[in-house]
């Protein structure tokens, strides 16, 4: 009964999406206030019914209703409640419903918080969001219905993929999708702006907090995914340049470029058409990512099972939405002209470089991700692009970006770098280089050029960021949320760079064959294989090892790596034993029995790896602070058309 209600709710949601699109866009075109008001009501209605549909599916999972195909293929009677709920978005159909829910949620938020927007503009934004909703709901109802029944009901489910039975990965999709989908708001704002042929830059101010919000969710989502891969996939890697990872990283790069470009457009009215193009691109990359993951053209880790109809539908949807937006851009953007000038050392210049390097990295990563497809389409062979390609093409643009980042934060709008800022920067540079030599030399005894450069850039960015609030406090100047947010976020980037440099330069990963009682040494730590025993969990059995870790004789920790066999069958799974420290992680994964009483073990030393995720969290936190700046909450109409002074 409930699944049928859910299905019906989804159909109603689709109808309301159509109403949302028609009444909003039509009402704006005709200047009909009644229609536009109806369009806003449709937004609420759509959200309610999508939520009902989602709730019905969740209920089916909670109740272990194996007469629903999707539940039967993704759940199990012994699956704990938390994971039964997380299983809702564990596979293709349910994750689409999550997408739709996120989209409906963002749309509702925009409708609720945009009272200060002019009615036609606001309606156009909601209308475009409605068009996107139609696409996803139609997709579900025609090719990917989560409510399909199974008669007779399965007596037992196939279980949720054991890899997904984990807290981080359970919450990873909702947060990630809030990010991906959130870029649709910037997209809709851009399309509305283009459609209206607006020549001013007021839309940049309206779009900025929404984009920041989506971007910060995406940042957290990606960081969660990386952290999960590290401890769950068993082999200690934290980023693989896998097509699906790239599918989330590329919108992030575009989103980062966008928030910086929006700053310039908002403050100085420059880069208007470029910012619009970026806004369209960020969401387009989200959609592209969806296509890559679900169509079968590129298969990878997270690949959802592919059905021929789905690939075609998504591609058609992609073509209409992105193609339409790009044609709209080509039609309207030429009318936008930015005439103001700026000094080479002004903030505008640095943000221009920021965009240039981010977009270069983005383009090269996109090329690497799609290259296998191009080669296959041209019948030039079946290839895959290895991680070293991505590492190189990402690293090269990032080096100058980080260097310029430190300076750019201190550059004033229009006029450029002021005297007092220069001194601060020399200090930061000096301390940065000194610090890098200290860390490399004293802590790790290794002064490789790339490593030292990495540490130096990381410290440079962190110190340069800290210099801003210090200078303001000393000069008794105010510290607005926007500035504080920027400082925190950039500090986070520096911290993440520190972590990445440390782990990539000094990590040690080795495989050993050990019998109980034997030990192995890496990076000055002694890992002794003390014991191995059988264990049992709520839905699995397995073995667990005790690895006693000491350093120069004094005890450090005991690690407990496991190898599990889930009751629902399938292959064994590795749970690594990890010890988290202030300066490093120690990592042990259990392999197989090798005979002669020996087991294979992978032992790893991972210096500074935690700072990667800590840095990412700070980046997101900085974004949050900036998004909550008071000026975004002052009615936008009171400020539209104001010119802003050159300094903050």
């Amino acid at each position, binding site marked *: 009964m409930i699944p049928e209600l859910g299905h019906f709710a989804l159909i109603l949601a689709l109808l309301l999406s159509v109403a949302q699109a028609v009444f909003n866009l039509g009402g704006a075109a005709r200047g009909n206030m009644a229609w536009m008001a109806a369009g806003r009501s449709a937004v609420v209605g759509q959200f309610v019914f999508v939520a009902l549909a989602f709730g019905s599916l969740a209920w089916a999972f909670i109740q272990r209703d194996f007469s629903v195909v999707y539940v039967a293929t993704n759940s199990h009677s012994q699956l704990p409640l938390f994971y039964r709920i997380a299983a809702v978005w564990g596979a293709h159909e349910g994750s689409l419903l999550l997408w739709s829910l996120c989209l409906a949620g963002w749309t509702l938020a925009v409708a609720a918080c945009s009272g200060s927007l002019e009615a036609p503009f606001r309606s156009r934004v909601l209308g475009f969001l409605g068009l996107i909703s139609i696409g996803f709901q139609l997709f579900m109802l025609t090719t990917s219905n989560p409510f399909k029944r199974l008669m007779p009901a399965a007596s037992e489910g196939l279980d949720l*993929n054991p*890899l997904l039975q984990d807290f981080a990965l359970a919450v990873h999709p909702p947060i990630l999708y809030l990010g991906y989908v959130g870029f649709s708001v910037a997209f809709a704002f851009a399309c509305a702006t283009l459609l209206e042929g607006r020549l001013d830059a007021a839309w940049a101010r309206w779009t900025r907090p929404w984009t920041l919000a989506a971007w910060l969710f995406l940042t957290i989502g990606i960081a969660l995914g990386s952290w999960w891969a590290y401890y769950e*996939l*068993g*082999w200690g890697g934290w980023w*693989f340049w*896998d097509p699906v990872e790239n599918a989330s990283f590329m919108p992030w790069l575009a989103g980062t470029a966008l928030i910086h470009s929006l700053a310039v457009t908002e403050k100085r009215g420059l880069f208007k058409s470029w910012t619009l193009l970026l806004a369209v691109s960020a969401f387009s990359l989200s959609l592209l990512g969806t296509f890559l993951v679900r169509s079968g*053209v*590129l*298969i*990878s*880790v997270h*690949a959802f099972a592919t059905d021929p109809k789905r690939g075609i539908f998504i591609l058609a949807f992609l073509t209409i939405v992105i193609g339409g937006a790009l044609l709209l851009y080509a039609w309207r953007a030429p009318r936008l002209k930015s005439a103001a000038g700026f000094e080479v050392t002004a903030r505008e210049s640095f943000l221009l470089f920021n965009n*240039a390097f981010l977009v*270069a990295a983005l*383009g*090269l990563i996109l*090329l*690497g991700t799609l*290259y*296998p497809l191009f080669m*296959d389409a041209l019948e030039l*062979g*079946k*290839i*895959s*692009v*290895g*991680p*070293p*390609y*991505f590492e*190189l*093409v990402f690293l*090269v643009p990032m080096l100058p970006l980080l260097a310029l980042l430190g300076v750019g934060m201190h550059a004033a709008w229009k006029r450029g770098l002021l005297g007092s800022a220069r001194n601060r920067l020399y200090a930061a540079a000096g301390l940065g280089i000194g610090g890098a030599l200290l860390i490399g030399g004293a802590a790790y005894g290794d002064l490789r050029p790339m490593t030292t450069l990495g540490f130096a850039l990381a410290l440079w960015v962190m110190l340069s960021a800290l210099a801003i609030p210090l200078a303001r406090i000393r000069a008794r100047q105010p510290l607005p949320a926007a500035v504080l947010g920027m400082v925190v976020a950039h500090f986070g980037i520096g911290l993440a760079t520190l972590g990445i440099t440390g782990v990539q330069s000094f990590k040690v990963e080795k*495989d*050993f*064959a050990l*019998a109980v009682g034997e030990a192995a040494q890496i990076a000055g730590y002694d890992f002794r294989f003390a014991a191995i025993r059988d264990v049992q969990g709520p839905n699995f059995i397995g073995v667990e090892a005790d690895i006693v870790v000491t350093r120069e004789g004094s005890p450090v920790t005991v690690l407990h790596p496991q*190898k599990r066999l889930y009751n629902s069958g399938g*292959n*064994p*799974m*590795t749970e690594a034993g990890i010890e988290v420290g202030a300066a490093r992680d120690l990592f042990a*994964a259990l*392999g*197989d029995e*090798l*005979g*002669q*009483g*020996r087991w*294979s*073990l*992978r032992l790893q030393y991972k210096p500074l790896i935690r700072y990667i995720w800590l840095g990412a969290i700070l980046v997101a936190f900085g974004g949050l602070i900036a998004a909550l700046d008071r000026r975004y909450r002052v009615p936008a109409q009171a400020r539209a058309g104001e010119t802003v002074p050159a300094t903050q």
Partner: protein
Amino acid sequence: MTPRRKRLLAVVAILAGVGAATALAMLAFQDNLLYFYNPSQVLAGDAPGGRTFRIGGMVTEGSLQRTEGTLQVRFVVTDYQHSIPVRYEGLLPDLFREGQGVIAHGKMTASGEFAADEVLAKHDENYMPPEVAESLHTPTPARVSE
């Protein structure tokens, strides 16, 4: 600087940037494009000698051999037309099994053995490359196997 000069500078800068990016891409692609071959193709000489590539197929039943008490393993990869022995030292992925699919990353040695530095199991939740999924659906061979 006149607007025209500025426009020219911008165009030159963009072209230079694109050129640099292209050069970087080509440099990065050089050794990092991994070609995939099945055993028949390798034995026919299609695979590049002396360079790293990927080989894929099924693990022949009964072919897995461990050197007792060590990390060394040997197994045979087959596409039911031809087979190639593989040797590897290290932890095998959880999903590695005889009679199931596998991809190995490494080089052919002079002895005709494939020295793998990485082994991925086909249904590995960690990674299933597209060519593997497609190789599971085989078009008819030129001749019926003997």
